[in-house]
C-alpha cells in the first residue's frame, strides 16, 4: 500500500516540477548502517536541490495547542 501511494505521489510531483524530493526506503531496526546511509544520501541530495520552491508559500507553523493556557510551572530536580 505504502509503495503504491509513494510511487504515485512521486510521479505526480514529477509532473508538477517537484521531482526527487520524496524517497521511500524500507529499513529494518537491524539495519542501522543502511538507515544512516540513506538519511545521509537523501540529506545531501536535498541540500543539493536547494530549498523547496513551495517553502514560504505554506503557512507558518505554530505549535501552540488550541485551548492552551500557560500554567504555572514547577521545576524540580531530583535523582
Amino acid at each position, binding site marked *: *500500500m505504502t509503495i*503504491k501511494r509513494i*510511487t*504515485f505521489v512521486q510521479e*505526480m510531483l514529477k509532473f*508538477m516540477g*517537484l521531482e526527487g524530493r520524496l524517497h521511500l526506503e524500507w529499513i529494518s531496526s537491524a539495519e542501522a548502517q543502511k538507515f544512516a546511509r540513506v538519511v545521509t544520501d537523501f540529506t545531501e541530495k536535498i541540500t543539493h536541490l536547494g530549498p523547496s520552491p513551495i517553502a514560504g508559500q505554506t503557512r507558518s507553523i505554530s505549535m501552540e495547542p488550541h485551548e492552551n493556557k500557560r500554567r504555572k510551572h514547577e521545576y524540580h530536580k531530583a535523582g
Partner: protein
Amino acid sequence: MNITKQVEQLLKQGDVDIFLAYRELDGHLIPHGYTLDNLEDLENLKVSQHRYSLEKVATHLTEKKPNLKIGIVARDCNQRALNLLYTWNQLSPENITPLMVNCCPSQTRNHSDCTYLEPKKTGTFKQKKGIDFNENPREFMDNNDNGQRFSRWMYEFSKCIKCYGCRNICPVCFCTDCSLENPDLVEPGALPPEIPIFHLVRATHMAGRCIDCGLCEDACPAEIPLRFLYREMNRIVSDVFDYTPGAGLEKSPFTIIGNEVTLEPRPMDA
C-alpha cells in the same frame, strides 16, 4: 423505441421507481426525476447537451432510501461513474438501470477520446503563462523543464478561489468528511488556498477514482486546467497500476493490499 417510451415503460412495469433524465424547462435543459406521479412531464424529456452528474443525484436518493430502484439516462462517462460508484459501495448495480444514449449530441471529438463538446480555445496569454488546455500532458512534460512546469502550475493554482466547485460537481466525490476541509491538511481561511497542497491533496484522493468526465474543469470559475492534471494522474494509475477507474468493476489498487503489479522502491538518484 424512443427514449420517452422506454422510460414510460420502465416506470409502468415497476422496473424503476424513479428515472433520472433531462427535461426542458423555461428554455433550460435541466435534470429531472420522472416518476409515475409526474408521467405528464415525460413530454418534455430531452437529451441534454449539458451534462449534470445524474449518478451523484442517484447517490443522494440512495442515501435517503437505500433500496430505491433508479433509472438513469447514461452516456459513456455516466456509465464509468456508475461503475466506480459500484466498486466503492456507494450504489449497488441491482438498483440501477442505466439507459445508454449516444454520446454527446454535439460536435464531439473522437469518441474514443471522449471529453465532450468542442475543446476550449486557449488564449495567448494563458498559453504563454499557463497551461494550454489542449496540450498533451506527455508533451507538456517533454517541452518544459522542472522549473517551468512548477511555475506554470503555481500560476494556475494561484488563481484558485477555493469555491470547492471541482469537488462539489465531481460524481465520484462521496466522502462525508472531506480532507480539503481538514484544518490540519489545508489551512482554513487562506486565499488562494494553500498551493499547491490543496490541489495535490485532491489529486491524490482522486487517484484510482477519477473517471475523466471533465465536469471539474467545466465548473472551475478560474479556468484551472484540472482535467489536464487529472489526465496525467490517470496516465500514472494506468501505466503503473494497470488500472482504469470506471472501466469495469475491479477495485482501485489503492484500496486493496497487493496487486499483480509488483513495485520496487525507486533508487534515490532516479
